[in-house]
């Protein structure tokens, strides 16, 4: 069964350092999502790609966060510099066409900023 892959699973970094997360969606899925989930809360959508284009990044803190999906397949989310408040689970999901299709989530990357 196809799955969304994410790496690393866990990342510990010091504040002011740069971190990057990688996501490989299910093959053939056009839409890719990055979410941030703080412990005890629901996931918050950071950015949504349709193929290689960003269709929504209204909740992405653009002063320190960036995301790209250059060839419309895998994607990277970067934080530079990391802050203590960035500690969270970063989830990637993909869907076949758009937001009305089932989203399949990866296992997430747990980020701890010290």
């Amino acid at each position, binding site marked *: 069964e196809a799955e*969304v892959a994410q790496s690393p699973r866990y990342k510990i970094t010091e504040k002011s350092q740069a971190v990057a997360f990688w996501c490989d969606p299910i093959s053939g899925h056009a839409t890719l999502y990055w979410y941030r989930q703080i412990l*005890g809360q*629901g*996931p918050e959508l950071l950015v*949504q790609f349709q193929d290689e284009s960003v269709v929504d990044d209204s909740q992405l803190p653009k002063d320190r966060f960036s995301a790209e999906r250059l060839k419309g397949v895998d994607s990277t989310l970067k934080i530079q510099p990391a802050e203590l408040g960035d500690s969270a689970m970063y*989830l990637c999901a993909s869907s076949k066409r758009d937001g*009305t299709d089932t989203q399949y989530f*990866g296992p*997430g990357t747990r980020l701890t900023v010290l």
Partner: protein
Amino acid sequence: GESVGLHLPTLSVQEGDNSIINCAYSNSASDYFIWYKQESGKGPQFIIDIRSNMDKRQGQRVTVLLNKTVKHLSLQIAATQPGDSAVYFCAEYTSGTYKYIFGTGTRLKVLA
């Protein structure tokens, strides 16, 4: 694994009973609604969805009800099993704006 939903509202039900989890959504323009199940250390898993032109949809042991008048969504789980213990999130999607919003979640505990 890590704990999801340490401070979430909790619903405790006896094994074999029916569970009802409620959700209030925020945007009257939302046209697609989804329920997810999240176990500790894992990403959310799709359970069932419903579009705004429907008010009820049934799956295997689960039913989703949508009341657009009061912007309310509910998930009913029949014959709740220990494996149903998890945190449940509702989500709403607005097609025109690509907005995808998750609710705060409810922890379901199944008592043996």
